[in-house]
């Protein structure tokens, strides 16, 4: 049974004041509490659900396919247990793109062959096949963030964003839509591209908390779904997107784990382009871990 059944016995009906006999014992106060029980369940899919999230840097107004997918996150969701894990994939991973495309950065997969090629490239790397691919761009990201009312993000370090010059504090930051976008896109002021992938995960966790906090506000889930329908490119029909949005709120932020696949810095080609050779054993191990129960074993090392 996957319903959440938190027994809360908290509603006070009445209290009888203790009779205190002078010079004698103190009598206990008797309370009578009514029993309140909760139950929650959302039907989406059984077992672990794999979702590939892609953030395209295509210019506003142009097709998302024209951009590089610089944010790549593979999510495993176990909606029965409320567990979820995020596997971050650095955009500069040098991989053999399937369908005869050849070696390239993994962030070119969507541009080269759309969602199916991107999903195949990720499957070749991690060993699991994403069931759904959700792609967003700057406009869609801003729209969804605005609808959510901004987002609280926990940053592990302080820095200024590359664009917008937003001061990010270590700890909790509240970002509006533009600030959140600057936070997600910052690279040069960070230690490495891996930090950017970690920031993307921090952002996703912030969105999860925001959705859970506001899910019972009248109209919120419909507004955020409408925003997602307009701001995401996906094969999911709108009704399934609505189900997914409602189902995601079953994920418990305390049961969320995340890792970034690491690799070895290298240069390739006549222009000595900087890329990363992925740590395939680590990628496959993370995929196997999350496939069991959407939880990653402690440690993100291979």
């Amino acid at each position, binding site marked *: *049974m*996957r*319903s959440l*059944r938190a027994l809360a*016995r908290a*509603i006070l*009906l009445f209290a009888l004041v*203790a009779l*205190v006999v002078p010079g004698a014992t*103190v009598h*206990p*106060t*008797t*309370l*009578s*509490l*009514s*029993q*309140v*029980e*909760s*139950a*929650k*369940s*959302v*039907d*989406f*899919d*059984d077992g672990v659900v794999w979702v590939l999230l892609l953030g395209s840097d295509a210019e506003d107004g142009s097709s998302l396919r024209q951009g590089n997918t610089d944010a790549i996150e593979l999510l495993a969701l176990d909606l029965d247990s409320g567990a979820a894990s995020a596997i971050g994939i650095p955009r500069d991973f040098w991989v053999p793109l399937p369908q005869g495309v050849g070696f390239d950065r993994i962030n070119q997969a969507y541009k080269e062959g759309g969602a199916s090629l991107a999903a195949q490239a990720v499957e070749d790397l991690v060993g699991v096949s994403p069931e759904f691919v959700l792609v967003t761009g700057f406009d869609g990201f801003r729209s969804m963030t605005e609808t959510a009312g901004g987002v609280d993000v926990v940053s592990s370090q302080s820095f200024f964003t590359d664009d917008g010059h937003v001061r990010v504090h270590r700890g909790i930051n509240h970002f509006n839509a533009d600030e959140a976008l600057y936070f997600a896109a910052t690279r040069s002021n960070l230690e490495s591209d891996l930090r950017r992938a970690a920031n993307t995960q921090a952002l996703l966790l912030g969105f999860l908390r925001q959705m859970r906090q506001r*899910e*019972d506000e*009248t*109209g919120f*889930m*419909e*507004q955020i*779904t*409408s925003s997602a*329908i307009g701001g995401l490119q996906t094969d999911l029909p*709108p*009704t*399934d997107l*609505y*189900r997914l949005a*409602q*189902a995601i709120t079953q994920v418990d932020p305390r049961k969320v784990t995340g890792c970034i696949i690491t690799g070895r810095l290298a240069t390739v080609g006549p222009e000595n382009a900087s890329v990363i050779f992925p740590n395939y054993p680590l990628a496959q191990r993370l995929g196997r871990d999350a496939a069991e129960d959407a939880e990653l074993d402690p440690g993100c090392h291979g």
Partner: protein
Amino acid sequence: MMGPMAGTGGRARRATGAAVLLVCAALGGCTAEPSGPPESQPSSDSAALRVRTVVHGDSNLTPAARAEAEGAVGDVLSGYVVNAFLGDYPREDFARSFESFTGSLARNATGDIDQLTANRFGDAKAIRATRLDADLSFLVEGSDVIGATAFVRFQFEATMDGVQRPLGMRGRLMLVNEDDAWSVFGYDVVTDTGDAVEAEVTP
């Protein structure tokens, strides 16, 4: 993803026993607008189900489409309320309350039957509704209503052993409209059974 349980549409809407629920929307009104038609009176002493739309976004939803959606969702809700809480008592057939639930959700709901129905009050002599309110928030795609959250507040009074006992359920029921049929695909509810739990504290 599963569709609603087969062949449930008609049965879910069938009123049983003496309880007669009136879905105001189906009768042409009972929306949030003060100019709406007066409420109809139920034919029993149970309260009527009051359905009203509180949110439908910035859509182009026409009043007729909204009324149609209210009526369809109201039918699902009224069928659920009748099967889950009303009907002829004593009774044991609470599992059929989930006929309008999607397949996987119906299985989970069976595990939560004490929170989603009057299962614990099966031995009651009678149960009547004292309040049945549902505020609807619609998800509109184009001109079609494709989803809804029903914010429900249901209150009942059970007669057991000559004593009146309250029973309440409030929270959200999530619905989706697929293939011109509405089904419940999620719930997030709190039930107050009125059961007293004695506790002692020493001041």
